[in-house]
């Protein structure tokens, strides 16, 4: 069991986190015809927008209530109303996802009642547009929390409540934020191969996959439809991926009675086996040949790849669920997690991470802990630390702004595990050091093996 070390520094050095409202906006971007709206000053939106664009290389719809000095003093309800009405007139969205920021949350207004009265007073003008609220101050949480709050808000606000007639083959899938476009496309195909009909919420594979439409669209195009969110209660089962999706899955169960299965990770042979067995069980169908083939390929990759992982020291900085998923993957390959840094201390997954300790902190902490490791695993901002330490960097998560195609990289199920394994093994091989007489000289090397004490402890 890992011990969780809280942050003790006053100056964060090279932040690991992206903000909570960005996470909420990210989830709203997975809905068709949607536009997220930050309730804050224009900079809050501008920074998040630029970061999204750097990562996705796509036009990203994101707007602001443009809080100025006066509104900050007098209250922002008027700005919120004006922004919602302007968006409705100009872009005709099916959904506006309001994400609050630190500025308005520090002021502390009753946003839910503001929105309720806007919806009541402007019912006619706003017909056909869902207005959602995610309370996401920047001084709390990061992407995980924001994403989960937005999905919960959509289930609580749009999904028709009450026990409904269930469609036996329909499965609600609630992916965590760190699944890529390729992951969701692949997951859908695998679920379908059992004769099931998945409804994915949010579905960034429809909206952030790089389509070239034949007209200019001011909202998202593609993603989960509002109608599908409304009908989510007719699913027979729900699959949530990542501990942070427990809250939205529970909301769905509470409101509609749809039971959920939570998969904390879809990386690694055993984790994927569990999901595949579940799909086979609920569908009553045998595991299809293609899936069996992918599993066999992963077995072979484990055999071929494990040579490169044994004894390797890995430094990972990621949000809690992704940290857990990657750490269990590397440990499952025979490597050791020498440094684990994460964004928040509240997640229940943290203590199950296979590392001695997990530091809540930033990339400055990672840089201090990663000296002497074989691989750094984090997002693109880790590039400076990796360069200074001379350790290869495997880019995961968000943002990845200095490599193309991160959205089309497969990272889950048998095939994604295989790809991750190859990527890491290739990074190890690319940085292999040639043997030199001086490094092998037995008279120079009198150190005990690094893990001698732990070997002794184990025996």
């Amino acid at each position: 069991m890992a011990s969780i070390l809280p942050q003790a520094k006053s100056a964060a050095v090279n932040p690991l986190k992206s903000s909570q409202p960005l996470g909420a906006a990210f989830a709203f971007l997975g809905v068709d015809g949607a536009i997220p709206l930050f309730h804050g000053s224009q900079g809050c939106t501008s920074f998040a927008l630029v970061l999204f664009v750097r990562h996705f290389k796509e036009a990203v719809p994101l707007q602001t209530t443009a809080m100025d000095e006066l509104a900050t003093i007098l209250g922002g309800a008027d700005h919120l109303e004006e922004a919602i009405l302007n968006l409705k007139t100009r872009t005709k969205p099916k959904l506006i996802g309001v994400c609050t920021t630190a500025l308005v949350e520090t002021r502390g207004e009753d946003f839910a009642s503001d929105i309720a009265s806007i919806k009541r007073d402007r019912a006619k003008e706003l017909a056909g547009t869902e207005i959602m609220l995610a309370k996401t101050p920047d001084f709390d949480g990061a992407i995980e929390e924001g994403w989960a709050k937005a999905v919960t808000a959509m289930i609580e606000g749009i999904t028709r409540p009450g026990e409904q007639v269930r469609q036996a083959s329909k499965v609600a899938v609630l992916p965590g934020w760190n699944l890529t476009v390729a992951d969701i496309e692949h997951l859908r195909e695998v679920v379908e191969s059992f004769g099931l009909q998945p409804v994915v919420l949010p579905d960034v594979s429809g909206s952030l996959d790089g389509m070239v439409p034949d007209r200019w669209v001011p909202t998202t195009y593609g993603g989960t439809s509002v109608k599908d969110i409304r009908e989510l209660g007719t699913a027979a089962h729900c699959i949530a991926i990542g501990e942070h999706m427990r809250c939205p899955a529970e909301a769905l169960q509470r409101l509609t009675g749809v039971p959920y299965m939570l998969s904390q990770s879809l990386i690694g042979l055993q984790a994927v086996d569990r999901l595949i067995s579940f799909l086979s069980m609920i569908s009553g169908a045998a595991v299809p040949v293609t899936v069996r083939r992918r599993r066999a390929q992963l077995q072979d990759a484990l055999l071929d790849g494990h040579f490169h992982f044994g004894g390797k020291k890995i430094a990972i900085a990621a949000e809690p669920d992704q940290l857990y998923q990657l750490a269990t993957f590397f440990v499952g390959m025979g490597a050791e997690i020498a440094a684990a840094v994460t964004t928040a201390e509240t997640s229940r997954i943290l203590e199950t991470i296979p590392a001695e300790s997990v530091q809540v902190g930033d990339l400055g902490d990672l840089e201090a802990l990663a000296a002497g490791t074989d691989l750094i695993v984090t997002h693109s901002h880790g590039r400076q630390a990796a360069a200074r330490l001379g350790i290869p960097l495997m880019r995961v998560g968000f943002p990845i702004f200095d490599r193309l195609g991160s959205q089309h990289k497969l990272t889950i199920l048998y095939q994604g595990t295989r790809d991750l394994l190859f990527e890491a093994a290739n990074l190890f091989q690319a940085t292999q050091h040639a043997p030199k007489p001086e490094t092998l000289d037995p008279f120079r090397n009198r150190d005990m093996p690094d893990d001698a004490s732990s070997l002794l402890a184990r025996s």
Partner: protein
Amino acid sequence: MSLPSAKLQQVFNEPACQKNQGKDANARKQGCSKPLTPGAAAGGCAFDGAKIALQPITDVAHLIHAPLACEGNSWDNRGAASSGSTLWRTSFTTDLSELDIVMGQGERKLFKAIREIKQAYAPPAIFVYATCVTALIGDDIDAVCKRATEKFGLPVVSINAPGFVGSKNLGNKLAGEALLDHVIGTAEPDDVGPYDINIIGEFNLSGEFWLVKPLLDRLGIRVRACIPGDARYLDIACAHRARITMVVCSTALIGLARKLEKRWDIPFFEGSFYGITATSQALRKIADQLVSQGAHPELVDRTEALIAQEEAIAWEKLAAYRRRLEGKRVLINTGGVKSWSLVDALMEIGIEIVGTSVKKSTVEDKERITQILMEEDQIFESLAPPELYAMLSQDKVDIMLSGGRTQFVALKAKTPWLDINQERHHPYAGYDGMVELVRQIDLAIHNPIWCQVREPAPWDSHPVSADGPTSTTSASTTGRACEKIACSTAYAAGQG
């Protein structure tokens, strides 16, 4: 709130800004940032502007006093280059938590953060940036910085431009004020000379000032301070000993230049290093002004000789592109000084300017554009994405030059696009920079992908027969002609 409105009034009243002087007293009080429309706004906040203006100062530790987003979502995102310290690329923030805010621990955390940075990095100075939340909760950043300066014996400068006070442009101005109030004039150089100049508003993006600096070096002109591109703290502290100032990006930091003149008698002029003629004009003006400030008059002749030599080489390099680019239609959608300064060189090699945006351009900028282009209808204020998309997809433009914000309008309309704003990866300043820009335009327009992406899939334009796809060389349904040479090459490569 901590920002005195007197400061705002002061920066809004800018005698050196022609636009500002055209207003009556009342309008001037309103300031130059237009009120934003909630739900239809674009662009950064005042904090963003302040950080952009100061962060390229390379050896300073820039500490953002804020909850996560202000810094966490925005760091390491600009391509200014440094010839020395890389400390400016290390991000520092107090990352305030809910507890910090509720318990009122902001000031204490800030003070401790300053101490940690001083101990671990020993920078020559620390800049502390206020933000919306820390201004709202009333943290007295000025007092903390003052105390830290005394306690730690290094300059700790407060940059008071929280996001909600206004636009990016206002933030630029407030950053200039902070330099005037706390930095410039705080150190004395021991090597003052008659050829010392300041360059203000040059950001050294992609290192492009290094395309210009050797020209100045050749003339024996020393850049005392380039603000902020590739600057050291000490350079800026000594900026009051330069003889003249050239302002490069006029809207952002002109107030700084005017106050350098007022306070230390350093005359300034506005110029640009984008474009051949503009670069020559700038060099000429620098020489003239230095001479009028006491430099030896022979500087003028040496400058003319250098200009003649470098212009000849640049025009010769550019001439090679005439055959490939003559008649190509360019849309410049950026505003400011680039709306005109790039135009003459492009026109010289036969490129047609179908339009240029005068958003953010000064009165003087606009006059120059009108003189060069002759036709008013090529000049526009700004285009909304749907209109821009329509213009681009109707084959009225061969390439758009703009900033990242409109990148995807062009790309989704399958139109060549080149980044000429802050996120670009190529240096475009000076004579060689203009040649590089033209080279990049050529590469973009003639890339073989255009005819591939514009053609519909064969099964959409022709029924697929049992013998396989029919020829794709027939007329394109998009109505756009592809470059024949590029297309056949690409097609052959695809077949081969």
